[in-house]
């Protein structure tokens, strides 16, 4: 780190170049697929870019699924540790309410 200068890796020009390089590699991997023959066993894995396309789609589906399940399953990260939890302790709060009148 030289003074206020940002690290070379986080400058926007570097990031643009990295994206360019990444896309180039992606293209090359697709082209390389033309030169090899995948073993035919379900009949589609030798299509152009099958593994790239399948991997990409699989990831989209998995992230989508995670987002959906997240709506159902996500809780604040102090869910189990917080002493009283306004979101979820209806049973406990009613319990304490019920106990109070009996104590006097």
């Amino acid at each position: 780190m030289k003074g206020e200068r940002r690290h070379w890796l986080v400058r926007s020009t570097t990031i643009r170049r990295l994206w360019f390089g990444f896309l180039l590699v992606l293209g090359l991997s697709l082209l390389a697929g033309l030169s090899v023959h995948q073993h035919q066993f379900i009949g589609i894995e030798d299509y152009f870019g099958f593994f790239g396309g399948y991997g990409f789609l699989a990831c989209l589906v998995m992230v989508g699924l995670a987002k959906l399940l997240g709506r159902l399953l996500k809780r604040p990260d102090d869910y189990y540790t917080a002493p009283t939890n306004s979101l979820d302790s209806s049973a406990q709060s009613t319990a304490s309410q019920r106990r109070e009148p009996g104590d006097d």
Partner: protein
Amino acid sequence: MIEPMFPPGLVLFLVVLLPLVGNRGHGLLVLGLPLLTLALVWSMPANYLLTLSFMGLELTPVSISATGRLFATVFALMAFVGALYGYRQASKLEMAAGLVNAGSAIGVSLAGDLITLFVFWELLALSSTLVLWAANTTEARRASMRYLLVHLFGGMVLLAGISGHVVATGSIALVPLQADSVAHWLLLGGLLVNAGAPPLSAWVADSYPEASPSGTVFLSAFTTKTAVFALIMVFPGEKVLIGVGLYMMFYGIIYALLENDMRRILAYSIVNQVGFMVTAIGIGTEMAINGAAAHAFAHIIYKGLLLMAAGAVLYRTGKRKCTDLGGLFQSMPWTTLLGIVGALSISAFPLTSGFISKSMISQAAADQQLVAVWLALVAGSAGVFLHAGIKFPWFVFFQKDSGLRPPEPPANMLWAMTLFAFGCLALGFYPAPLYAMLPYPVSYSPYTGAHLVAQLQLLLFAGLAFFVMLPQMKRTLTISLDFDWFYRRWLKRLSAMLVDQSSQGQQQWEAAARHRIERLNRWLVKHLGLNSRFARGLPTGSMVLWVTVLLWLLLLVFYR
């Protein structure tokens, strides 16, 4: 050739001498014992058996099989590197528990009968609990108790299964079985609890990330992989394992994608990776079993490396949430680099250990014409890159600049990471020694043009998907509910409700009793109290009058 009269794993138990030796003996003990164990494992002849009569049972405490030797080897290596990583940082208790943990795992992998296996199995659970406990935080102690409960439950199920099997067959031999009776299902269930299989998968992510930086490294290696070993030995080719394994694979991916804590991400990823192995055991061909064993070997090394990198970050920053981290590559370049080697290995990039092991599993599925399983395995491989291969290094070392500039970890931690990074690459460049250790002869060559292109396309486009969907992957301060909700919340609520109900009942009963006592009291006061008929004072004159009346009556009655 040495033919020891005891299980080699017990050598590691000598670490309990740790409090007795001084500073100089410390290094000799914690680094020397794993190496001694490794030497012992390899000096024993193949198919060596040690038998022992105990309470009418013919035990086989040591039985050297190819699979067992492979697992014992990687467990001993892990013990060495784990001890180096925690050399100065781990407490004496944690170091001792960690090495006993390793010794128990080695004990399981060289066990020749179900009883020996069970004894080491339980020692494994107890020592893991102690490793967790040694982190010495409230959260870790609570997690250790939950861990212990889950594993004692699993051990009980396993023991029930073993007992049923022994009663039915009269044999305690460690032989391949099929899930065809209640006892065998219990046996399978007990083994699967330790593998992190559903529904109790949550224990992995609940407990491991609560240990200390070095404690997590120890824990990550042993429990789940001894379960993989046991499944290979007892249930190879059990078809139900294919479904269980695939579920674990996607469970790990989905939960890791939702997770914010860096070590919990890696813990979910353990379940994911063990899922690959369990699926392979379910497929059960020679190729598949080789794949499961090779993948377990490779996995212990790269997962240890990843957790060491995460531990180094935690050790230096005290932070574990992705939302608090980022930009650390600027001041921790070596940790970043070594962490990336681990990330590439878990993603099975060519020239890393994951590439030469995981591909055997998908190859086995293809060989058996299991189209759906093969497609799921390929999608799972892309998902591994997504949730661990990029997500972990990206959110910890890159993404936004958190402003943190922690120094590199101490030298012993860096060396431990370097050793395992070297292991990842060495296996990737030169898989022959690992292949030679596998249970069956290997006629598989991972480096074909078709395989290279397929894997590179798959991973690169998974990487593209990650960066395209980066806005969707924004970390939030959340956890995700899992099955542990049932024993951490639901049971707690249930017991609170029961306490509540019973205390209400008690109050009602008390009120009724008090009412009755008060009524009795009122009656007594009314009839015997100060103003009652019996307590009233009477004039002396009326007494004399009544005595006179009585005397007159007597006179009348007795007058003849």
